[in-house]
């Protein structure tokens, strides 16, 4: 078994909502080996997205340790976390979250603005990412001129362009019809199998979860089972 790309140890996470403290994750531990495609499933409020946010370095745990790609995320400040995210993780959201005023190419280029690449190199890499998701011919189109499936492909290209080791997907097919959803899931599968990207995907959809190599089920802030790594 390969080294875990994600190691979550005894993590708890509580949010303050007004005067109340709401515990969302409770002493959760988990390991995801590099190169795995994991689907996180569970009812609303079970803590899936919170766990995904912690793995992606968008949030920090109340207690416990999170190590992703060899880096202890729970020890990083917000600036260091931002720099880490830029280099190690790609995000794919349910509602694509593309910049409406930028073309597909410019959207994909965004993460590369944080690198030392010159404009030509940024353009070339962004175009290569668009080619990978099959949307090179739509490079100049704005998000409003793309279908949902195409917009999500652009979002995947944006997530890939900085060559992260981990893709974090929050309901990536939630807004798509079945066919587009399957296309996206096939693409994620390809990225996992052929390009070695580790994928952690939150989904409600059992069919989507079927594309993953392992399914994890959560409820009330805990993992119900750890599935079985391949």
């Amino acid at each position, binding site marked *: 078994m390969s080294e875990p790309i994600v190691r979550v140890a005894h993590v708890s996470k509580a949010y303050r909502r007004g005067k109340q403290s709401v515990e969302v994750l409770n002493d959760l531990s988990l390991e995801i080996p590099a190169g795995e495609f994991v689907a996180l499933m569970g009812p609303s409020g079970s803590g899936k997205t919170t766990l995904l946010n912690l793995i992606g370095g968008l949030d920090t745990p109340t207690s416990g340790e999170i190590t992703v790609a060899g880096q202890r995320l729970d020890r990083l400040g917000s600036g260091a976390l931002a*720099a880490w*995210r830029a280099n190690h993780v790609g995000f794919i959201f349910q509602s694509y979250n593309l910049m409406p*005023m930028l073309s597909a190419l410019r959207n994909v280029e965004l993460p590369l603005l*944080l690198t030392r690449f010159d404009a030509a190199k940024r353009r070339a890499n962004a175009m290569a990412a668009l080619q990978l998701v099959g949307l090179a011919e739509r490079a100049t189109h704005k998000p409003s001129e793309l279908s949902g499936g195409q917009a999500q492909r652009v979002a995947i290209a944006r997530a890939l362009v900085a060559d992260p080791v981990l893709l974090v997907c929050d309901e990536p097919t939630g807004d798509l019809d079945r066919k587009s959803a399957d296309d996206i899931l096939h693409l994620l599968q390809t990225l996992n199998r052929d390009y070695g990207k580790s994928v952690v995907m939150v989904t409600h959809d059992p069919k989507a979860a079927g594309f993953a190599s392992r399914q994890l089920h959560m409820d009330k802030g805990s993992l119900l089972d750890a599935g079985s790594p391949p």
Partner: protein
Amino acid sequence: MKFLPLVWATLWRRKTRTIFTLLSIVVAFLLYGVLETVDYAFSHPANSVTGADKLITTNKYSITFSLPFADLQQIRGVPGITEVTWITWFGAYYQESKNFVFALPIDTDSYFNLHQGGFIVDPAELEAFRNNRSGAIVNVDLMKKFGWKVGDRVPLHSTIWTQRNGSLDWSFDIVGTFSAKDPAEATQQSSTFLFHYETFDEGRSFGKGDVGWFEERVANPAQAAAIARQVDALFANSPNETKTQPAADFTLAFLKQLGDIGFILRAILGAVFFTLLFLTGHTMMQSVRERIPELAVLKTLGFSGGQVLGLVVGESLLLCVIGASLGLALSFATLPILKQGLQGVDLSPRAIVPGFAVAILLAFVIGLPPALRAMRLNIVDALAGRG
């Protein structure tokens, strides 16, 4: 620089709103450019006493206070002064108050002698003016404006001087015309209407024996400053102390009687920028509020809080600098028009550096609050719609 296309695209995310905001900034800086230039012109007279060949002596405290005619002899006695004339502000209009007439009661011989070569005037008409106590000699532009002809008897209404019969209406026979020899002075003199001081002094019901100001010509302009000091020294500690200055500065001082020009201009600018601050500031806040999810995505992609702050401030900076550039450019385009209306005032585009400084300051004041909000954005809350 690599972030500029992103900032530019964000700026034009809502074109109509950006255009209207930009227009408000352009108008504010157009006003700023014009008023700053005028204010500078009024507060920094370009003329030094040394080098002036004509001096004006007024009451030290205000040109609205008169001086005794008797001062004339003492002024004439100052070495280096070759001619002295005396003039009074008549404050007149023709038929309606909008028909302003720059009417001045003068002493014919000394006035035309002092301004020798300054006017194009028919010697016969000048002679006719000398010989007619109720006569007037009028600028050709004013004649055309009101359709007057030589030989007409025209009434002027003074806003200051009542006649002995209590009337503010005075009548004059136009006996001749004149025009400015120097085209640069043509506009300044275009409303001038000259008549006899003796007629005015005999006819007025108060202030007899007083004059508005004296005008002197000096033999050696290099001595003008010393001569001006000598004139003022003559009347030091008297009930009517004087202030002697170059004729061009007197024009400015005269215009300043309209009020504290600097204060008025600054008050206008203050009101304009105060309004702009709130208007543009509100627009920026609203713009950032609408983009909370997008800003959260940028942070998700790895943009630091400082970089997000920089993007929002950059947007504000770009907006203000473009608006200021257009506004200031437009204000400079209006300078030729202003110069026509403010003869004697030295106008030049002086608002560039302070204008851009104001634009940058404005950009930070309106850009920082939303930028700080964007910087402190919690990604998880913002993506969940709780930002």
